[in-house]
């Protein structure tokens, strides 16, 4: 019986169109945040402006991909001193590098039901390969939600390397928290 049901399910799946779904982000319910420390005190911030091209199908991970482009000038901490510093030449250098981006090269499924995204992360003029796990909820009705968090070493991206390469003031590790709510394009 079980085998018959599985066979029926597989037949149904293969009958579905092979093209993976394109998702549209709901910016009001999505966020990309970052946090770190300055002189031992925690700060948090968010990117107010970013766009994502998401093509995803759990049954077709090879055909799934995502590209996220961040407006570096939109990084906001709510602290006037930090917000005045972030756009400057030694930090995000928004005049020379108005955007940062992540482009996936592979998405793989993990045993625990989560996924791992691997891709190229570009900040300033540095592009490094990063790999991070994300969880995904794909309800039959309602939008999909993906969550991820990763730790980045700002020094590896040339951020604040003239001011504070050793991290004596601004901690070298910046935690990035991603929460994306998106609906498939009809």
């Amino acid at each position, binding site marked *: 019986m079980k085998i018959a049901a599985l066979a029926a399910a597989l037949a149904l799946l293969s009958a579905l169109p092979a093209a993976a779904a394109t998702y549209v982000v709901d910016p009001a319910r999505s966020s990309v945040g970052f946090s770190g420390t*300055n*002189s*031992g*005190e925690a700060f948090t911030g968010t990117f107010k402006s970013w766009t994502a091209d998401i093509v995803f199908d759990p049954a077709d991970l090879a055909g799934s991909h995502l590209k996220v482009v961040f407006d570096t000038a939109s990084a906001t901490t709510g602290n*006037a*001193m930090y917000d*005045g*510093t972030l756009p*400057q*030449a*030694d*930090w995000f250098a928004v005049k020379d590098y108005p955007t940062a981006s992540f482009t996936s090269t592979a998405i793989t499924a993990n045993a625990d039901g989560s996924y791992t995204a691997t891709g190229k992360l570009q900040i300033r003029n540095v592009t490094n390969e990063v790999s991070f796990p994300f969880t995904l909820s794909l309800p039959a009705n309602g939008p999909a939600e993906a969550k991820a968090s990763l730790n980045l070493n700002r020094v590896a991206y040339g951020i604040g390397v*003239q*001011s*504070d390469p050793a991290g*004596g*003031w601004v901690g070298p590790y910046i935690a990035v928290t991603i929460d994306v709510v998106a609906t498939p394009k009809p």
Partner: protein
Amino acid sequence: MTKPADRYAGIAVALHWVMALAILLMLASGFVMAFGDIGPSLKFRLYQWHKSLGVLVLVAAALRILLRLVLKAPALPGFMPAWEARAAKAGHLALYVLMVAMPVTGWIVVSASVFGLPTIVFGLFEWPHVPGIAGDAAVEGAAKGAHFWLALLMAVTIAGHIAAVIKHIVIDRENILARMWWGRGRTMP
């Protein structure tokens, strides 16, 4: 009989003592920032506080010099020998120059710093950077050196200023301090 030119104007007296307190706080916080064994969190806050108070000292110094030009200082008391009068005038001139040069060199340090931290005066409003020198390490280094040596010179000049007051009170037995305090009537018989 009130001799009008006997003491400083009330507003000048107020500025003198407010700035005296501010400058002592600036010197103390500056030396603690440069040499004190304090944690980064306190040091960072102290830097921002020092920058904020420095802006106020610069504005107060400009106001004070303007007042000095408009109101004129009372003549030096007659009991002082000529060399003391010359030293007093030179010392006062040095203090005026330093109370402008200290905040200006500090302002240049902050403006040229590669760190690029803005100056938010006591968290209330942003004081602009000196334009055109952002991230210039050579300018920052020169201004830093000047700020340090001028601070030492200021500490020495203030010590001389206070020593002179003590000398006039203890040795000359003249209440010279009354010239720099609020009141009516002649300061000296």
